[in-house]
Structure formats: structure tokens, C-alpha cells
């Protein structure tokens, strides 16, 4: 049994033994647990990944005449300033208000630019009060001019996380990166064996007040992060899915742009790559054993992000050793994998923190309170008005066509039923294609006579169990005006069109009045 005070004395005396969490694996394998626990004083961890739940409190100082900022923009990115007069919180994932820039330069990029010492345009608007008469200011700020720039990240360092893939026929752009169709690739974000909370899975040493490496400077854990969960399935003591999280704080003025980067997940949004290193004091053998966990013993779950619902299906279980080989198997096919967090940077961070401790520049702290280690669940948000499913809405009787029909007959069918879309089906009622009134006009113009020559074979569809909101998003994404509704056997059950959705919105707003 060691105490943190004893370790700190060793740091002072210059004889502290520090290894990284990756090195600890071989230290324990070669020397045995007992000897490793006696000899090693501190294990350093590290991670460098996209942590959307990040941001910064900025204090701009008072102008003359003074202003009570109501709407605040930094290089056109809005910061929330409903806090006193000249304080604002800039969220990392806030996009640019200029639609042409949008997600390419958002809150995260401003944070990086401030740390790089770049000049940022500040625009603030106000309603004017007796004590704060100024209604609008436009000026330029740099990090030096700010009174405070304090990074406060509500949720960082997820203890394990989902591994993403996509079963659908379309490319998906997600916070887990670009997911290619038909299980085309797999992405994962945890640093695995170097990740802070996987090395202290029951929060035995990490807690509120623990001093850490944050983006190249010193920071602190200020408590459990949002969505902190403890009641999760574990294997080899570590959770197999997203579990514990940390809330972090650090002085941006002391940060290094090498360890913090603004980024944009394509067609998703801005996010901040944040470098975090947490030191774990080796107080006993049990703690030592847990820091020696290796990638093959950290299980994680491959999740199908093709299902845009809160609960997404698990495709298979795997581990970080398998993922890091660059390929894992799904349905008999080897699928390439991508990490989204930098293992190289994670190692650099664990090494840097190790150097700080060895050189007496960083001392360990006793947490003032342990993180909650039980009875924490992530509760879902229940929507008062439950989402309407496709099967819940009134659909007109389905009118279909067969591929053998002639264009003239199809045109008649469209006119007689006053519809614009016609699903084309086989003799079992299964979907083969779709034809629209525009396609028919086009066919006539080009002198075509058979339906099978003009129908669209690649059809965007809706399933009966899908929420209408998901379908509305699909209509928007593919710039179409209607989709056939099909059951699990691919049999056509009806059509849903933009008109149906407009009517639905119209009805619900009438009811609310």
C-alpha cells in the first residue's frame, strides 16, 4: 500500500518510477504483479480524440461605454452570453452562422485559433440598460486581451464507446466519421489500453480534483461528466460500451496547439480534438493489475449506425487489438477499420505527462471526492408528443403498376387517381421500381412506350416502423417528393409523399391551437 503523499515525496526526491499504460502491460508481464505494484509509482494514460462536448468560458472585459452582451459572435460563431455582462460560453460544436462556411469553421476552430494567438473578430449585440447603455460592439480580440479563457468540457474521456458501421445502401456522415454503405468500413474512437478511464475502471484513484494533462497544460477533473453511467455490462472489469465520463477544466492560456485541434466531421459538424492525460497512482496491486489491461482484453460492440434510432442494433463484439489490425470480419467479409482518435498523439501525451512527473514538474493530487461508481444510468429523453410512425398515418389505398404496362396506360392511371408517383411491382407485389409523372412526360418526349424502360430501379424507400421525421429527413436528403412504403418482405404497402407530410404538420399545428 502506497500513499499519494509518498509518491509526491519520490517525485521531489527525483526517484519516482513512472511508466505509460502501454508500458505497464509488459512491466507486469515480465516482473509479475507484486513486483510491478511495488516498483511502479505512477501509470500515465492518454487520449486524443474528437470530444464534441467541449467548450470555453471567455471573459472579454468591459468596454466604454459598457455593454451587457446579449448575442455574441466570434468570427461569426455564436457564443452563449446569457451569463452576466461580458462572459460567454463558446461551444466546440457550434457551427458558423455564415451558411457558406457552416460546419467548416465553428466553435472548435475558434478555440484552436485563440490558443494559437490568432486575432478573432468579436461582435456583440445588446438591448441596452441604464448601467450598460452600449447596444453593439465590433472589435478584435486575442488570447492576451481576454481576462479569462477557461476550457470547461462537460463530457470528455468516454470510458469505452461504440464501434460504428453501416448496413444500409447509402453512405452515412456521422459523428463517427464517414460510414460506407453495406458494411463498407468500421470506425472506432477509444484509445483502448491507453484510455484514462479504462485503466481505472471503478474510479478508485480518479476523482473530483484530480490534476491532469489537458491540451498541453495542466487541468483538473471537476467531477463526473454528463451522461456518466456506471451500471453497464463489464468484461475483464472494463465496460463493453459507453460508461463513465469526465468533466474537465483547464486554463486555455497555457495550452499548446499541438494537443488541441478544431476539426469538422464531414457533413456532421465541428468538433474539438482534445488531448487528455490522467496519471494513475499505483497505490496497491489491484490498481496495478487494472492499469495493465491490454487491447485484446477490452471488449467493445460494433453498432449499426444505419438505424437512426436511439437503440441501434449490435452487429458483433470485438476488441481493440482486433480493431487495430486494420480489419475485422462481418458476415464472412473482412471490413477495413479506422480509428478516429490518434493513438500516436495518445502515446505522446502519456509520454509527455510521464516526463513532467519524472522531472518534478507535475505532482499528483488526492481527489477531494471520488467519482460516482454506482447507480448512474443515462436516462432517455421522453418526448411528450411521441413520434408518429409511418404505419400510424392515413395512407391512401396503394395504386401500383406492372413493368409490362404501356406508358399510355400508366399516364391514365396517374391522371385518374390524381397522383404523381406509382410504385412498380412484380407478380408477388414486391417493389421493382418507381415512376413519376415527370418520368412519363420525359418518356413521351423521347418517344418511349414501355414502362420498364423508364422506371427508376434504384428506389429510396420507407419502412412501416420508421418515424415520419426520419422519412422527412430522407426526402430532404435525396431531394425526392415521395417514397413507397414497404414491409419486411419488400411488398409495397403504400406511398408517402411530401404532401402527406405537409398535411400532417398542418393537422398537428391546428390541434395545438
Amino acid at each position, binding site marked *: 500500500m502506497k500513499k499519494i503523499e509518498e509518491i509526491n515525496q519520490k517525485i521531489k526526491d527525483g526517484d519516482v518510477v513512472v511508466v505509460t499504460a502501454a508500458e505497464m502491460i509488459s512491466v507486469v508481464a515480465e516482473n509479475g504483479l507484486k513486483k510491478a505494484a511495488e516498483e511502479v509509482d505512477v501509470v500515465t494514460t492518454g487520449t*486524443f480524440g474528437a470530444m464534441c462536448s467541449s467548450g470555453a468560458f471567455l471573459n472579454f472585459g468591459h468596454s466604454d461605454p459598457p455593454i451587457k452582451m446579449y448575442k455574441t459572435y466570434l468570427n461569426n460563431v455564436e457564443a452563449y452570453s446569457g451569463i452576466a455582462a461580458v462572459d460567454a460560453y463558446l461551444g466546440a460544436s457550434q457551427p458558423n452562422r455564415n451558411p457558406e462556411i457552416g460546419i467548416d469553421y465553428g466553435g472548435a476552430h475558434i478555440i484552436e485559433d485563440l490558443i494559437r494567438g490568432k486575432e478573432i473578430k468579436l461582435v456583440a449585440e445588446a438591448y441596452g440598460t441604464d448601467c450598460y447603455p452600449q447596444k453593439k460592439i465590433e472589435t478584435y480580440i486575442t488570447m492576451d486581451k481576454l481576462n479569462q479563457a477557461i476550457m470547461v468540457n462537460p463530457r470528455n474521456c468516454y470510458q469505452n464507446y461504440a464501434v460504428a458501421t453501416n448496413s444500409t445502401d447509402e453512405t452515412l456522415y456521422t459523428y463517427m466519421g464517414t460510414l460506407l454503405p453495406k458494411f463498407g468500413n468500421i*470506425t472506432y474512437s477509444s484509445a483502448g489500453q491507453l484510455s484514462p478511464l479504462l485503466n481505472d475502471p471503478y474510479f478508485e484513484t480518479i476523482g473530483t480534483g484530480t490534476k491532469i494533462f489537458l491540451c498541453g497544460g495542466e487541468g483538473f477533473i471537476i467531477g463526473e461528466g454528463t451522461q456518466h453511467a456506471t451500471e453497464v455490462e463489464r468484461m475483464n472489469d472494463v465496460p463493453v460500451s459507453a460508461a463513465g465520463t469526465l468533466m474537465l477544466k483547464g486554463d486555455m492560456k497555457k495550452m499548446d496547439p499541438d494537443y488541441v485541434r478544431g476539426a469538422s466531421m464531414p457533413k456532421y459538424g465541428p468538433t474539438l480534438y482534445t488531448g487528455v492525460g490522467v496519471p494513475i497512482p499505483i497505490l496497491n496491486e489491484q490498481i496495478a493489475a487494472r492499469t495493465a489491461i491490454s487491447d485484446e482484453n477490452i471488449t467493445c460492440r460494433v453498432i449499426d449506425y444505419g438505424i437512426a434510432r436511439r437503440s441501434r442494433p449490435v452487429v458483433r463484439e470485438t476488441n481493440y487489438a482486433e480493431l487495430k489490425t*486494420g480489419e475485422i470480419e462481418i458476415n464472412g467479409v473482412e471490413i477495413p*477499420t*479506422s480509428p478516429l482518435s490518434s493513438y500516436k498523439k495518445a502515446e505522446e501525451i502519456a509520454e509527455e505527462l510521464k516526463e513532467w512527473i519524472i522531472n518534478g514538474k507535475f505532482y499528483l493530487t488526492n481527489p477531494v471526492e471520488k467519482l460516482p461508481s454506482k447507480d448512474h444510468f443515462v436516462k432517455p429523453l421522453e418526448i411528450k408528443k411521441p413520434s408518429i410512425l409511418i404505419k400510424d398515418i392515413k395512407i391512401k389505398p396503394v395504386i401500383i403498376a406492372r413493368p409490362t404496362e404501356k406508358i399510355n396506360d400508366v399516364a391514365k392511371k396517374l391522371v385518374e387517381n390524381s397522383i404523381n408517383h406509382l410504385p412498380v411491382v412484380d407478380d408477388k407485389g414486391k417493389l421493382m421500381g418507381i415512376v413519376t409523372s415527370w418520368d412519363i412526360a420525359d418518356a413521351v418526349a423521347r418517344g418511349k412506350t414501355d414502362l420498364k424502360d423508364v422506371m427508376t430501379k434504384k428506389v429510396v424507400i420507407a419502412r412501416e416502423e420508421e418515424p415520419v421525421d426520419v422519412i422527412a429527413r430522407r426526402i430532404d436528403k435525396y431531394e425526392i417528393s415521395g417514397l413507397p412504403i414497404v414491409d419486411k418482405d419488400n411488398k409495397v404497402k403504400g406511398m408517402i409523399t411530401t404532401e402527406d407530410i405537409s398535411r400532417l404538420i398542418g393537422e398537428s399545428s391546428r390541434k395545438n391551437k
Partner: protein
Amino acid sequence: MRAWLRFSPIIVNETIISDTMKKYDINFNILRADISPRGGKMLVEIDGKQVQESIEYIKKRGIEVNPIKKVVKKDDEKCVDCGACLSLCPVKAICVMDDWEIGIDDQLCIGCGFCTSSCPMKAISVME
């Protein structure tokens, strides 16, 4: 050698490439192509003993030839070696090196640009 070939609509109906291949016995591999009735461009790899002669011939027939040394470029200042690009490369030109650094093999790259649009740091560019 690799080159971008650009051609105008006037010559789209001519069989310039196959004429060149027959005449100079070259290997001709198309890596990327964007061809329409209004002309177009192709990224190609040409090998063989008479590469220079074949290029002169292609030029004479009216195709603009712009040799390129590099297909893809990674800005190492911007790249953080996250690896988001790894699984998106259709020809496995992107790999993880021993120290976990991400490397792109220019010889294998076909310039599809998939990594370019998916890089969170916008660190990769395909040379035009």
C-alpha cells in the same frame, strides 16, 4: 509516369489512346476519368519503353498532357494521425506505420479524393 490528360470536345470521337497504345506498345492505366460530350480529363499511368515518344504523339493529336510527380499530398502540420481516412481508401494506399503515424503511398493512390473530403482536419489534398 503519371499525368493528367485534358481534351477538348472536338477530338472526343477520335481513338487517340488506342492508336497510341498500338503504335508505341505502352501500358496505359486510367486511374480517374471525367469525360463528357464537352471534353474531359483523365488521370493516367503510362509505362513502357517509348513513354516519351507516346506522350509527344498524344500531344500532337491534340491532348494536353500535364505530368504530375505527386497524386496526393498530406499536410503534416494539420494531420494529427487520427486515421479516419484509413478505412475509406479503396486501394489501401493509406497505412499505419510502426510508430502509429499515418502514411499515404503516392504510388498506390488513384486520386479518388475520398480521404480528402472525409478528413476532419482537411489535411489531405489531391493534386489537380
